[in-house]
């Protein structure tokens, strides 16, 4: 199965629906271990994405993701803006000139994970969004297609697992042990993104 331009736009529009629905929940999670603006920042950025993408013409998936990256970087702010912006930009660069089949998508997510590590100076296990992106990459390596159900499952399990982690990167790191028993807000918004992808693929 290949991901085409229309589906990529649908994916982002659906991701926005989820972010808008869960805006307050994301901010609540962030208030517990950060500064409480994750929902507001993500909602501002993704609303702009949903307003923009359906009204533009794109040649390939790479172009949709590049536009998404630009909007995220200029509208989200905080740490989420550069991180999500970097992830979308790396996926765009990796898919330039190719159709997005399972193999390409795996490379795209791989590039995004590398980009996130570099930009955030973080690695797996530090209670950040990488702890969702990296397990999704592992699943993509196992299966040779873009399997929505497996991606959603992996992202969900990974998101839940951040609850037991002690934050050592980002704002939550100041809380150390006190960061335990809380989901990482960036992991939760990353889960919504992958859940939106799964739903888009199911719709066809």
């Amino acid at each position, binding site marked *: 199965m290949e991901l085409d331009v229309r589906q990529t736009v649908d994916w982002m529009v659906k991701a926005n629906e989820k972010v808008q629905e869960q805006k*307050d929940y994301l*901010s609540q999670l962030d*208030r517990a271990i*950060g*500064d*409480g*603006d994750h929902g*507001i*920042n993500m909602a*501002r950025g993704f609303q702009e994405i949903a307003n923009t993408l359906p009204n533009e013409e794109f040649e390939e998936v790479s172009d949709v993701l590049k536009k998404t990256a630009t909007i995220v*970087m*200029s*509208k*989200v*702010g*905080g*740490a*989420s*803006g*550069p*991180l999500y*912006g970097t992830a979308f930009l790396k996926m765009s660069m990796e898919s330039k000139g190719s159709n997005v089949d399972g193999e390409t998508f795996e490379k795209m997510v791989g590039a995004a994970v590398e980009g996130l590590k570099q*930009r*955030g100076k973080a690695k797996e296990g530090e209670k950040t969004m990488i702890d969702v992106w990296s397990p999704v990459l592992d699943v993509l390596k196992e299966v040779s297609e873009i399997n929505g159900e497996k991606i959603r499952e992996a992202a969900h399990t990974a998101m839940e697992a951040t609850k037991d982690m002690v934050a*050592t*990167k*980002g*704002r939550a*790191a*100041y*809380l150390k042990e*006190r960061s335990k028993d809380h989901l990482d807000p960036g992991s939760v918004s990353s889960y919504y993104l992958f859940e939106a992808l799964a739903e888009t693929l199911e719709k066809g």
Partner: protein
Amino acid sequence: MKKLINDPNQVVTEMLEGIVSAYPESMKRVEGTTCIVRKDAPVKDKVALVSGGGSGHEPAHAGFVGQGMLDAAVAGEVFTSPTPDQVLEGIKAVDGGEGVLLVIKNYTGDVMNFEMAAELAEAEGINVEKVVVNDDVAVEDSSFTTGRRGVAGTVFVHKLAGAKAEAGGSLLEVKEVAEKVIANVRSMGVALSPCIMPTSGEPGFELAEDEVEMGVGIHGEPGIEKKKLVTANEIAKELTEKVLPELELDRSVEVAVMVNGMGATPEMELYVVNRKIQAILSEKGVQVHETFIGEYMTSLEMAGCSLTVLKLDDELKELLDSRSKAPAFRK
């Protein structure tokens, strides 16, 4: 939520318009951006200083724009760092050909957005250097954390590096001064009550009536511990005891002291705290060159204060004393 606002989504824009109309003689807005720059920017052949961060810390950062201090302040949403494209606009608006120094507070979002802006500016051929301020002694500096936060000590970095730039220092010389200030400035804060975020109407964190948060950050992030409210003298003592040992002060040393209000604490209380701080310094034989009391780096209407101590040498003293026309730091 009871606030003097029109529309929660327009707070930052309307604030920026209000600042510029208050100080038209020292600053102007870069149209279509969240950047406020010196009236005469770009100043040819002068190194430019660009700082910024989330809104809600007023008078930081726009209040420090003016001759002798910042060339540009870039505002983000409330408590949210500005985006790279906005920082880039600020850099481009003030580059006078001698390069630009970015003053960044050590917060993950600020560091990432300013770093990306620096990369973009370099791609456009602008010479950019950056320093990261990490004066907060409340959170430890280790490879396991993002490091210490940058708080009110940033104001001294703006002032002294700004003075060096105004005196004609090269980009590297201005950066060296900024780094020297960073190496010699330490702060710690305490919160008595949280602030209310204008966008959500919710308090940023929970604090019981009889509790204080020691080592609080400028967004209300926790530091060392929550404890029962104690007297001003005891708070002053605890802040001083945490800040001073970091600076290795002795009788030959002069310092600048800043007792900064977090937004909702009256000056009266800041003076009460300062009384004890000065007594402790005097007991230790530390000479105070100058004391600054008031609001420099706030946290909306959070009650509380922070103590910042800057260890001076002859060079830093001269730079601190030199002229500044920034509205929130006139000298």
